[in-house]
């Protein structure tokens, strides 16, 4: 039982539906059959009683005058010519005299005249006993376990009783008639079931499948954000339909929240890294400058052996390299720089094109700048160059890199600068995307691995945003970096 209750709705709903259909069909046809059997029987008995009384009345004078043939004609008349298994058709009629002998019967062969009626069968003997008791007019007798129904009517007038008319009906005829109608009813029930079951099954599936899908999604919810439920799966306004829409709404909100959280974590991490690196860089820079100054001072002393000088130069070169690296980490947008001119973009193009050509990369340039923008030109040039160098390297020989630079204007005032660099080739992995703007994230592949870090720092400091989109489109990789910077909001 528990097993049945634990079944999936996919099976349970159609199963219960089918069970209901079958039970309903069975109960209804059973009730109708039972009623029809009762009616069949009561009809038979009513007709038999009426017929028996009529016959008994006419039998009286025949018996009184001992007209056996007349009596035979009277009881034989209802049999007529039409024979068949109609339940109204009696098996035989017998007229018994007062001693329980057959006066005359419709079946002289089996129930001959003068024969002792009680000797034919135990049920007949029992019938005789019942008839012998004084009592009501017509009696209906249905001996237990007997194949027959008996209707006994006394042949009498006032107090003179001459005998008894016994109408014998076979239950078999009744049963066969009943079986026939039962068979028909069963056939109809089966037809109804055959018609209704697929409907019930379909309806059950229609309800259960959306529920099952919803359950599967809900169970996934703990592990990851599942997909949306296709609304066409259940496009109705009932509770299930509302549940669907509520689920989709919740899912949407969860996804948005997760995205925002992801962004926040990302930028917070980058900010933390930025602060850390800046702190470390400053801590290194101070002693470094001291060391370089000390080294310079030492070099201006004359009594240094050539061996010492060589060592000093080696030290200085090493310290300068540390200074360069630290300086690169310590990115600071050069806010005091002049405005960014359309010519600056063209300069970058001139600088990059030989590189692109050397790598066999086609560069598509689309700069729509017309007027100077109040943004630090040197920082912007650095961002653009870094992005382009990265793109050329990523796209590889035969690839294409496209650049689009536009100023978005509201009215006649430019409000945002958008620079989009797109390259083909391999797309970024999820892991790469997650750590893209961190320093040394990708050191092995792309030089020092500080290019994007620098870009991010500059764009952040300028209050802008840098977004990456790397995906397969029509079988080709496409990675784009989009930099947006607010104009005139110089901090």
């Amino acid at each position: 039982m528990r097993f049945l209750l634990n079944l999936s709705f996919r099976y349970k709903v159609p199963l219960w539906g089918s069970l209901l259909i079958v039970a309903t069909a069975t109960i209804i046809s059973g009730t109708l059959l039972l009623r029809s059997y009762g009616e069949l029987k009561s009809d038979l008995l009513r007709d038999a009683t009426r017929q028996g009384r009529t016959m008994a009345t006419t039998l009286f004078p025949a018996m009184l005058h001992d007209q056996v043939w007349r009596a035979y004609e009277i009881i034989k008349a209802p049999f007529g010519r039409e024979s068949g298994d109609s339940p109204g058709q009696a098996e035989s009629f017998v007229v018994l005299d007062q001693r329980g002998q057959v006066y005359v019967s419709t079946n002289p062969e089996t129930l001959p005249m003068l024969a002792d009626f009680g000797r034919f069968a135990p049920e007949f003997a029992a019938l005789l006993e019942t008839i012998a008791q004084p009592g009501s007019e017509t009696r209906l007798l249905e001996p237990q376990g007997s194949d027959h129904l008996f209707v006994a009517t006394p042949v009498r007038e006032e107090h003179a009783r001459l005998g008894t008319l016994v109408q014998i009906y076979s239950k078999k005829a009744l049963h066969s008639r009943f079986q026939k109608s039962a068979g028909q009813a069963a056939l109809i029930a089966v037809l109804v079931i055959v018609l209704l079951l697929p409907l019930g099954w379909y309806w059950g599936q229609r309800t259960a499948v959306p529920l099952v899908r919803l359950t599967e999604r809900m169970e996934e919810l703990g592990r990851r954000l599942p997909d949306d439920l296709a609304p066409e799966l259940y496009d109705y306004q009932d509770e299930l339909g509302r549940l669907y829409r509520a689920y989709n709404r919740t899912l949407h909100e969860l996804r948005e929240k997760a995205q925002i959280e992801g962004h926040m974590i990302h930028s917070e991490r980058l900010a933390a890294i930025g602060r850390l690196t800046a702190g470390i860089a400053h801590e290194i820079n101070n002693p470094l400058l001291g060391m370089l100054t000390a080294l310079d001072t030492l070099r201006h002393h004359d009594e240094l052996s050539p061996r010492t000088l060589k060592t000093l130069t080696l030290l200085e070169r090493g310290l300068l390299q540390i200074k360069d690296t630290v300086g690169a980490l310590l990115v600071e947008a050069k806010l005091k720089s002049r405005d960014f001119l359309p010519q600056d973009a063209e300069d970058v193009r001139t600088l990059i094109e030989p590189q692109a050509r050397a790598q066999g990369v086609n560069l598509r340039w689309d700069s729509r700048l017309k007027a100077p923008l109040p943004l630090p030109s040197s920082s912007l040039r650095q961002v653009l160059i870094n992005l382009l160098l990265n793109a050329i390297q990523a796209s590889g020989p035969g690839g294409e890199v496209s650049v689009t630079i536009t100023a978005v204007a509201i009215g006649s005032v430019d409000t945002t600068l958008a620079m989009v660099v797109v390259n083909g080739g391999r797309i970024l992995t999820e892991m790469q995307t997650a750590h893209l703007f961190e320093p040394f994230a990708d050191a092995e592949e792309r030089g020092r691995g500080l290019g994007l870090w620098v870009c991010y720092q500059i764009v952040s400091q300028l209050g802008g945003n840098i977004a990456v989109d790397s995906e397969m489109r029509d079988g080709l990789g496409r990675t784009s970096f989009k930099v947006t910077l607010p104009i005139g909001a110089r901090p």
Partner: protein
Amino acid sequence: MTLTRRIFLGACAALAMTPARPAYSAKALRVGMTPAFLHTQHGLLAEWRGYMEAKLKRPVEIVQRDSYRETMDLLRLEQLDFSWVCSYPYVYLRKQVRLVAVPLYRMEPYYRAYLIVSAKYPHIQGLAQLRGKIFAYADPYSATGYLVPRYQLRRMGEDPAKFFARTFFTYSHHKLIQAVADGLAHGGSVDGYVWDSLDALKPEITRRTLLVSQSPQFGFPPFVARRGVAEEDFAAVQEMLVMMRYDARGKELLQRLNLNGFILGHSNLYDKVAEMMRAFGED
């Protein structure tokens, strides 16, 4: 039965309204018919009446009764002018009636009694084997259907009143055959002429009976007139009957009656019947 009678009455009414039927002024002749033949052939009876009226040029009324006794009473009470009666009633009423004509059956004025048993009891080969059985009689005033078997039993030294376990009357030879065919009675004695006629008309009934033995022949049931009937009426009816077989219409009716004609008979044709009656102290 009722239906047939209704149809018969309807047919009579239709006949009465037919303008072709001449209106006879004279008093109607009343002719009685008994179950001596297949008296349920009402259509045939109606046609025969029409034939009689045409020949006699006067109305004829057919009177049918279900038992011989009633016809005999009607004759005695002078309610009938003529009647076709069984040989036993004729001998019984010999002093009150006159013999008009005797039918010719198979070219003889004789008939026989047939002892028949139900086809369900083929082992019964004769009257003796019917001891303690159920036996059907036709009519207490029937020669073939009552007198003959009783006479035969008497000759065998048996008491007819005790020989059978049970006897009953069907008041018609036709019904007697039916009773034996249904097995209601084990056997019965029947008018041979009726059995033969029925065998030709409805063999499905006679097939259920077995003809066990035939009696010697007796004078065929005659046409009689009451003593008081007018001489010219007697002569006219006698001539009409005797001449029947000489005209086409009469011949056709006779054929349907399964008879060859009527002849002038003599009462000594019935001496054998009278002898049997004497054996039972009657006559």
